[in-house]
């Protein structure tokens, strides 16, 4: 299990390749990547704040829960904080499993929990000022299926 919370940018290709390369006997690797969206060309900076200490604990707990539910070889979570620009990579998860169903489902589970149970907050700075991104009801509802 590899869980990283960092300010620095990371290379999606390098991370995915290294993750896949350290598996053995795993027939499936699924990756998900979150990217800063600039809706309507108004975004200058996306600021991501987190709760050092709790963030790592929460992500570890979510990853452990995924490993308890599905047959997984490994889990990777990388999440950035700080000031990001449009089209920059915010975060990624990767799951490795013998078969694709476990890898897909576990990746979706990780994302659903990470959205509303890991202590990150986004603030959009743009042409119209700055505003905290509100949590969406759908994100809370998404947890019910698990």
């Amino acid at each position, binding site marked *: 299990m590899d869980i990283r919370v960092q300010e620095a940018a990371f290379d999606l290709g390098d991370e995915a390749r290294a993750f896949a390369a350290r598996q053995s006997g795993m027939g499936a690797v699924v990756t998900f990547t*979150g990217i800063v969206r600039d809706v309507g060309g108004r975004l200058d900076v996306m600021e991501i*704040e987190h*709760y050092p*200490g*709790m963030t790592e*604990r*929460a992500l570890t707990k979510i990853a452990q829960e995924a490993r308890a539910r599905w047959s997984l070889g490994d889990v990777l979570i990388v*999440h950035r904080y700080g000031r990001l620009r449009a089209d920059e990579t*915010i*975060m990624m998860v990767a799951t490795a499993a013998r078969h694709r169903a476990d890898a897909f489902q576990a990746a979706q589970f990780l*994302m659903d929990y*990470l*959205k*509303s*149970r*890991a*202590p*990150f*907050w*986004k*603030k959009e700075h743009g042409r119209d000022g700055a505003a*905290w*991104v*509100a*949590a969406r009801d759908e994100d*809370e509802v998404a947890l019910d299926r698990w």
Partner: protein
Amino acid sequence: MDVLYFAWVRERIGHPRDRVDTQAATVRELVAELRAREDRYAAAFADLSALRVAVDQELTDFDAPLAGAREVAFFPPMTGG
């Protein structure tokens, strides 16, 4: 104990943490004490349904006991990913 604030809660209160001496038995009692401090605290804690709380870095609810707690954090619903 240390009381931490994140995102707009931090902005509304004006700083990221307070060192608090309290006899509060639950998070809700601690909130009542904080509200009574100053208007900006009252504003930050006006609507508890808009807030989440963690005690010693574990998400919990406002009725959680504070016995032995070292760190309490208040923040809006999380928006990771």
